[in-house]
């Protein structure tokens, strides 16, 4: 009833090819955007912004990037943390070495550094596949860990290897308050998500998916595997690099190479697998699950156990958080191996028939 497409006729190719062909989707999206851009900044507290919403928005962007590579093109990567690091340090170097460098160009240049790095480490994908490629991309991770720890030039000759930025501004507006940081990241996320969505439904996205589904067949029908794979690496690492630069500049503002350790690569991979491989929406769900859930559990468990008069220690909470989190991941993968995005599309299917399932 709520979600019925009856009567929505398309009379032109243009109308049939729009991103959201169903009217309800367009309305829902407009409402979500209105909430994200207007209602949330008015209601959310400083803590909610700085500890949950900003990390969520940035990680959603990174997950989007990883999803293009892993979900759409089928090239499993464990080097996402490295791409984030290259984006962050690249942007940092442009930012401090060129006086008066504005923030957005610095971020984009950082993303381009990550693109170059991604293509370089994407080259093995032309020869190896699947798990072998995952291990090969792990090399990118270790290489970046080594590079940013040992080559002093990248950290502007900082003695400790830790760098920081401040006085961020965009078009003269300072990006200091929690609200401005959130809105800035959100605006970038919307732009990137829109571009990514259009890419994956265009010719290039079809090529990626063809390579993912069966690369030999794709090559036979005239898709160049080299072009398709490397372009997926390039686009993905650009987005991941931008997210890394945002994570460093906006969220942490002072960071060390450990902030982009192999752990973050794993977390990003979990995000796309749990969120849903090959779905733009999945990146958002996955990021929410991985970023927000541990924090919610951490804050909620003491209160919950308090009802039963049990006091849990800090270490106890932390262990319980890991256990519950792990159990939830396993449960999700068994119940819904296609991720949270699939649950969402199932819900949409059900709504189409509601209230008369047949």
């Amino acid at each position, binding site marked *: 009833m709520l979600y019925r497409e009856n009567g929505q006729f398309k009379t032109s190719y243009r109308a049939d090819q729009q991103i959201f062909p169903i009217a309800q989707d367009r309305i829902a999206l407009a409402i979500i955007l209105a909430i994200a851009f207007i209602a949330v900044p008015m209601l959310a507290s400083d803590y909610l912004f*700085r500890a949950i919403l900003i990390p969520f928005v940035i990680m959603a962007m990174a997950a989007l990037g990883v999803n293009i590579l892993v979900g759409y093109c089928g090239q499993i990567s464990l080097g996402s943390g490295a791409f984030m690091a290259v984006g962050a340090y690249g942007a940092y170097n442009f930012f401090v070495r060129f006086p008066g460098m504005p923030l957005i160009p610095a971020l984009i240049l950082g993303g381009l550094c990550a693109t170059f790095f991604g293509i370089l480490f994407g080259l093995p994908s032309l020869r190896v596949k699947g798990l072998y490629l995952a291990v090969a991309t792990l090399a990118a991770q270790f290489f970046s860990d080594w590079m940013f720890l040992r080559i002093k030039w990248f950290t502007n000759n900082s003695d400790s290897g830790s760098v920081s930025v401040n006085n961020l501004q965009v078009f003269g507006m300072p990006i200091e308050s929690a609200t401005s940081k959130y809105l800035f990241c959100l605006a970038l996320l919307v732009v990137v998500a829109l571009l990514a969505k259009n890419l994956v439904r265009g010719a290039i996205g079809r090529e990626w998916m063809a390579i993912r589904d069966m690369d030999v067949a794709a090559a036979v029908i005239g898709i160049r595997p080299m072009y398709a794979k490397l372009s997926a690496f390039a686009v993905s690492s650009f987005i991941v690099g931008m997210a890394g630069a945002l994570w460093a500049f906006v969220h942490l503002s002072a960071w060390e190479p450990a902030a982009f350790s192999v752990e973050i690569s794993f977390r990003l991979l979990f995000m796309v697998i749990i969120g849903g491989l090959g779905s733009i929406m999945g990146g958002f769900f996955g990021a929410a699950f991985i970023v927000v859930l541990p924090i919610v559990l951490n804050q909620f468990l003491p209160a919950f156990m308090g009802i039963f008069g049990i006091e849990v220690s800090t270490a106890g909470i932390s262990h319980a958080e890991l256990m519950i989190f792990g159990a939830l991941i396993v449960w999700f993968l068994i119940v819904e191996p296609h991720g949270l995005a699939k649950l969402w599309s199932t819900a949409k299917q059900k709504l189409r028939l509601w209230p008369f399932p047949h």
Partner: protein
Amino acid sequence: MKLSKLVIAAAVIAAGASAVTTSALAQAKEQFFPLLSYRTGPYAPNGVPWANGKQDYIKMINARDGGINGVKLTFEECETGYATDRGVECYERLKSRPGVTLFDPQATGITFALTEKAPVDKIPLMTLGYGLSVAQDGQAFKWNFPFMGSYWTGADILIQHLGKTNGGLDKLKGKKIALVYHDSPFGKEPIPLLQERSKMHGFELQLLPVTAPGVEQKATWLQVRQSRPDYVLLWGWGVMNSTALKEAQATGYPRDKMYGVWWAGAEPDVRDVGDGAKGYNALTLNTSGQQPKVIQDILKHVHGAGQGTGPKDEVGSVLYTRGVIIQMLAVESVRRAQERFGKGKVMTGEQVRWGMENLALDQKKLDALGFSGVMRPLSTSCADHMGSTWARVHTWDGAKWNFSSDWYQADEQILKPMVKAGADKYLADKKMTRRDAADCQS
């Protein structure tokens, strides 16, 4: 099925509601101490006693004195796992609580991230014996307080001690000193000072990084075996320390030629190694043991009442005592701030910052607090946010730590220009200026 789900949902909502109401009721006259800690992860063996000491001291002040001039102390722990992003989350969660006092991030990485945030939120950061070495310059770093020493003072004292054991700093010429360090800002901090000293005295400095968290050190010790340095300085934390000692034992490197920083010289570092750690030296900022009066007070008022955090026999261990000292300095900063801004009132972060900047804990005061012999006197000022650079060396005899040197003080003549230059570079990078005399009064 439906019913059980409803019950769960109701419980969830009730729990959320109760959490909200308790935090709303906590607006009373209380000084709140956010405690960032790590009781899990590779650094937990050292993080746990540290966190226990901090908690027990707060409980003891409440039980023995009824708070600070009548202001009750409250605290909440937040687990960071030593990870920067979780530390930032904890900071954001706890910073807006009523009566928030100061943050002790307990990790160099988190300190770096919070250094950018503290001036905005006007909450001071206490980084006792760690953090940014250049933050000693209070005129550049208004909100950072590396009390009692930084990695530069630590490295300086170690070289002084090596010089003394060799019969003079000039005897170090031609010697080879290796720095085995945790490959992170924490481990890299001492390098500039050691390089400076190596230029002055003509010893060769060999840098041997160990990848975090420090359990993989085979390659490092292979290098030690090859180059046979005269001394090894160990800049480790958590599992890295005991691993290094075991590797030294396996390599056959004499443990009495190894000197750790004060984060590499506590019981968890040597206990598992047993006899293999005999003769190992490390810097220390404080004593250990249960004799000091403050430890006795904690045993009586906190553990005696069954309120203790952690096992009773760990009370008074090296890191536990350091936790107690950290918390004592925090409490005394509040007390000092109350002297100026009104006794019996809850101090804001800004007021506590003034208290931290004007601490004067002479021997008499320390004795009165029950800290006689535990630490050296400390007095801070606007220019000097460290207050004291004293440390001494202690040696593990297989069962306990014994002092093996007198107190040393870091050499001001070397440190001062380095701190000044580092702080100037920081200010220039940030396009900021030094605080003027008027700001020092505030």
